[in-house]
């Protein structure tokens, strides 16, 4: 069975339709890539699925249950969690406390020792143990992003939505992040990732969806996407322009 099914999902902001009748399905255990030019509606789609905003129309079925319009805290407790494009950590808290918050509140009825044990395990898994006692706000961007992922993992999700995890990272850091994403999938967690870093998305994802002006343009394997004429025009073309310009 599909872990996530989205049908005809739509969101308006005033006169603008940020997400327009989007359908998508995600298999348990897969990594789905979500790409599209700036303003295509990728983040808005995540905001709808994770409960940040309620959709204007359409259905979101997670694990056979309708979650459209639920508050984010309920959706998180059902096992669907996300990270943010602009990092949202608790800057005054230590790295350990940030992750502990995920394990304390992400699922019901956990005791302190259980939650601390779980936070430690996640810190280990994400390679943050040596930074446990550092205030998260004083970390570099790449580590703050890692903390956010760690905190999300600590909620024990079945599905993780990653919004531009690799943006702003240098090539070595991108490689590390790709390795982390692969290991998260190996833990049995299903992933949807929004990414502008093509190398990452083409390497990790078996399937990619392209959004443009809020609509799903095409869906396919990395080969299909990278050779598709429309995609090259609207997306890869634009990237080349950006590269040529810079």
């Amino acid at each position, binding site marked *: 069975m599909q872990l996530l099914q989205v049908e005809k999902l739509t969101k308006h902001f005033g006169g603008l339709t940020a997400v327009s009748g989007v359908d998508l399905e995600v298999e348990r255990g897969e990594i789905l890539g979500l790409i599209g030019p700036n303003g295509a509606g990728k983040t808005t789609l995540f905001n709808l699925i*994770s*409960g*940040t905003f309620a959709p204007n129309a359409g259905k979101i079925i997670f694990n056979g249950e309708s979650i459209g319009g639920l*508050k*984010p*805290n309920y959706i*998180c*407790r059902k096992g669907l*969690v*996300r990270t*943010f494009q602009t990092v*949202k*950590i*608790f*800057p*005054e*808290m230590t790295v350990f*406390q940030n992750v502990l*918050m*995920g394990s*304390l*509140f*992400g*699922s019901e009825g956990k005791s*302190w020792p259980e939650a601390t044990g779980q936070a430690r395990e996640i810190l280990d898994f994400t390679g943050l143990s040596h*930074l446990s006692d*550092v*205030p998260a*706000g*004083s*970390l*570099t961007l790449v*580590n703050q992003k890692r903390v*956010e992922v760690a*905190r*999300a993992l*600590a*909620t024990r999700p079945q599905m993780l939505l990653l919004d531009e995890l690799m943006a702003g990272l240098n090539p070595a850091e991108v490689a590390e992040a790709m390795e982390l994403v692969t290991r998260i999938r190996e833990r049995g967690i299903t992933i949807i990732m929004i990414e502008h870093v093509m190398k990452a998305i083409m390497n990790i994802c078996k399937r990619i969806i392209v959004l443009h002006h809020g609509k799903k343009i095409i869906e396919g394997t990395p080969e299909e996407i990278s050779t598709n004429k429309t995609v090259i025009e609207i997306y890869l073309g634009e990237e080349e322009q950006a590269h040529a310009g810079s």
Partner: protein
Amino acid sequence: MTNLSMTVKKNIPYIAISVLILALLAAVPFFSKPYTVVLLKNILMFAALTLSWALFSGPTGYISLATAAFYGVGIYTAAYLGKVLPLPVMVLCGGLASFLLALIIGAITLRLRGIYFAIFTLSSVELIKQVLHWFEITVLGTRGRPVVKISNTTVYYVVLLIVVLLMVTTYFLKRSRYGLAMSSIGSCEDAAAHIGINVTWVKVLTFALSSFFIGLTGATTATGLIYIDSHIAFDLNYSFFPTLMAIFGGIGNVFGPVIGAAVFSYLREILITRFPYAYMIIFGAVMILTILYLPNGIIGLVQTIKDKVLGGKDATASSRKVN
């Protein structure tokens, strides 16, 4: 709860000092002049209001200016129920009435953030005041009511008890799971909501808890007022003073609001008698200087000095970039 007993152990000096001060305060009515009792009662009342304010606004970062509304509800409870109920029951009713009102105001206003929340809470005081005024004049055909007088010493002890309750509640709440949820809202509300915290519920409930204590304080201290009407009971100063006192004292720990309230209300007492016309000006100047030069209040200053003297690691840790 082993980590609880550990925190208690670590804080033994503070607990010892607190118990000593408490014993001294409890003994005051036995050996001092009536004026001292009244002065200390007023200071304790402001300490109670400031602690209540800081209980909610401190960790969540939502600046509430509704204190006067809940204080006024406490006062009106005393005016209406003071004759028919014994003091402890009447005071509890004041707390509960404020608690319920806060649930309503909270549910309406806590979806607003930042300055909008502050302005709405402030407006709620004015709204309640005017509605009550209208109701008394047109429906009851009266204005204001007398309040049953209770001895200053009794009031003093009840307010002291409220302050102690507030300090203990604040202390343990801060170290609980619920307290972590509260401060995560102040730190990054969006993140808190997305990792499973019911932010609406935590905000509304904490707001109501804080208002419960404000209501208790209002119902207790109203007994010293003799006569009240809606303008006396819902005086906006009771919204501004606790906020200013908390900022002045610092909200970093449980002693900040108490110190802020003590210094501030003592200062106010002196300034009112010495400079009855200029006192608000001096007051304003002190506040501006505090906000400019002591952003973490008196407690923040004490902490900085302590760190410097001990060559503290904490002071540098937060300014260092770590990879």
